[in-house]
């Protein structure tokens, strides 16, 4: 019996070691003190920010702008952080997350596109030309959070699988609304010429560094959007990190692990689930606003339900609950298809096969490593540092005695 169990675990660990590139890295990270974490974090993000300028040959994406790829990555990373709050922290499977992305993007588009009847840009408009995009970002986040509230209030009484299907339905309804309400959203033709930040206007770049006219060289508009997105992402990371360590975060973990037990212990589960939903939605809206600004065009087909699945892949791949892990997941989800875009194998373009590979990755991961590549580690969330001190003090006194 014991022998059998032993061989079973050794087999498991072999498979797990193969799928766990990050365990050593995480141990090192957990061992660092807080100032050291900040130092290495700033260094890490600094290196990341410089990547598009000094792109090493082996990670470059041939045939497609590397800056643009990184901009897409940072948008999906923000989405993954938002979805991670909902799925990873609170354990609510949301399959319609793309709906929030769409709401965020359409809010900016409707307010600033000349095709829209609600356009507030222009001579008589409410927004100034230079600051239109930036002032739309908080509006987009607020509108999306409100959408999350409206969606969450009735549906969060449902549990697990039902919630997944209802959110899937809502995601699809939002896309169909965008498609069908053609008086407002211009239907499947989409909305054009959305505002973007007018910064760094010069003779060469009449519309600034964020315009699609800035398309040559390393510091093209994709790179600028990547930098902007990276800044916003760091802000979101700090916000979500603080939430995680707060009472709210502990309530989420309790709900995720056992909703009934949490309820019995006095956690207002509905309230905290709703908070998770609303915060996640707001973050999704932010990413949508970034997307609308960069592409300057939104159309319903960009918000197909399959994107929701892709976001979910990023979260599950990176490790549900681990906000740094899901950023890595987002990187894989965006980078690999772009990297493999021009690679052909047996007459099939490998870039086309992304959904096939991601599907396979999901299935294999769920069997061998359901917690993802960089799983979150349960720790003493509330009193971690003081508990650690207490323990070490106890050890010291024992050693002295």
């Amino acid at each position, binding site marked *: 019996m014991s022998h059998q169990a032993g061989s079973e675990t050794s087999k498991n660990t072999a498979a797990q070691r193969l799928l766990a590139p990050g365990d050593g890295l995480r141990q090192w990270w957990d061992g660092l003190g807080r100032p050291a974490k900040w130092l290495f974090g700033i260094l890490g993000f600094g290196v990341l920010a410089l990547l598009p300028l000094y792109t090493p040959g082996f990670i470059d994406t041939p045939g497609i702008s590397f800056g643009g790829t990184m901009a897409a990555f940072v948008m999906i990373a923000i989405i993954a952080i938002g979805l991670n709050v909902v799925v990873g922290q609170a354990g609510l499977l949301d399959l319609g997350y793309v709906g929030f992305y769409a709401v965020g993007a359409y809010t900016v588009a409707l307010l600033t596109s000349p095709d829209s009847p609600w356009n507030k840009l222009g001579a008589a408009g409410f927004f100034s030309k230079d600051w239109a995009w930036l002032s739309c970002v908080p509006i987009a986040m607020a509108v999306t959070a409100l959408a999350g509230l409206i969606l969450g209030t009735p549906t969060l009484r449902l549990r697990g699988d039902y919630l997944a299907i209802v959110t899937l339905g809502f995601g699809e309804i939002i896309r169909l609304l965008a498609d069908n309400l053609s008086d407002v959203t211009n239907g499947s033709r989409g909305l054009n010429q959305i505002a973007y930040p007018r910064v760094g206007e010069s003779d060469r770049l009449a519309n600034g560094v964020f315009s699609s006219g800035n398309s040559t060289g390393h510091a093209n508009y994709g790179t600028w959007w990547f930098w902007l997105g990276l800044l916003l992402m760091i802000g979101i990371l700090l916000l979500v990190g603080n939430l995680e360590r707060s009472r709210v975060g502990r309530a989420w973990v309790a709900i995720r692990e056992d909703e009934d037990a949490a309820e019995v212990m006095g956690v207002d589960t509905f309230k905290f689930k709703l908070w998770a939903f609303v915060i996640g939605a707001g973050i999704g809206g932010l990413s949508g606003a970034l997307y609308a600004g960069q592409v300057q065009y939104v159309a319903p087909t960009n918000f197909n339900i399959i994107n929701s699945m892709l976001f979910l892949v990023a979260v599950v791949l990176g490790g549900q609950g681990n906000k740094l892990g899901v950023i890595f997941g987002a990187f894989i989800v965006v980078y690999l298809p772009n990297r493999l875009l021009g690679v052909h194998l047996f007459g099939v373009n490998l870039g086309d096969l992304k959904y096939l590979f991601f599907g396979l990755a999901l299935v294999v991961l*769920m069997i061998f490593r359901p917690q993802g590549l960089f799983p979150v580690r349960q720790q003493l969330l509330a009193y971690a540092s003081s508990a650690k001190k207490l323990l070490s003090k106890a050890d010291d006194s024992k050693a002295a005695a």
Partner: protein
Amino acid sequence: MLMAANINFNVDGLIGGFWQLTVDGLSWGAIYALVAVGYTLVFGVLRLINFAHSEIFMLGMFGTYFCLDIILGFTPSGNAYNKGVLLTIVYLAIAMIFAMLVSGSAAVGLEFIAYRPLRRRNARPLTFLITAIGMSFVLQEFVHFILPQLIKGYGGSNAQQPIILVQPKAQFTIFGATVSNVTLVIVASALVLALLTDIAINRTKFGRGIRAVAQDSTTATLMGVSRERIIMTTFLIGGLLAGAAALLYTLKVPQGIIYSGGFLLGIKAFSAAVLGGIGNLRGALLGGLILGVMENYGQAVFGTQWRDVVAFVLLVLVLLIRPTGILGESLGKARA
């Protein structure tokens, strides 16, 4: 209000075409019902939303097409074949059996490859659902990109050239609604299959095993029911019915054979299962019919482009008002 222009509110259209809409809705509902049975049985036994069931249905459509095209030798053309009533029925029966075999074996294979390893590891319910989503991706993309490499002219980004075996033709009228031969075939075959399934679940020894596992799998195992075999049978039955539904669907929509063609129908069939009470066989059949009819009414009132929205809104409303569905949950308790 600006928005109002895109939504009709045409109640007269609903009243005027009521019976025609009902008849057409029933033929849609029959297809939903057959697919919904697959969802409901698996949910009853495993508590799992088999998200990849829509892809089982999609494979059934390709199975139908393969059978008609290669085995029976029909070449795709814009015109309908006219082979006489008897011969057409024989051809359809052969194609249906082939499609059922394709879908049935795909469903069992899916269970074997994806879900069985998870059960052995006692995975959490969410893990099952994510696996199901993954398999749904894999099957869709297989047909999208790999199948064209294996069989020339199959799969890929475009729908298959339609093979039309039955030209829709009015047969008779009832309450002023014309009933076409396609509707007749769909409703009749769905009725027969539903009846057979109901008998299989409620009257046979295997069916008793399924109900026992659905009710309490541990006790059922103690009573000598092989849980694994029951689960496999459940997937098989769901797959067979999805294959049959696929053939009926291609009669109605011959141009709908495409890799992504199962997705929406799958979600609607799942909604139908929830509507009737998921886990409940008769509930799934009833829910399918109701969804098909309601969708048609909604389409008449609000406009064609809102058809899918009607289905989703219905699903959401049902889950909010009565999450257990019309006939209540539980396969085991349904026939107490």
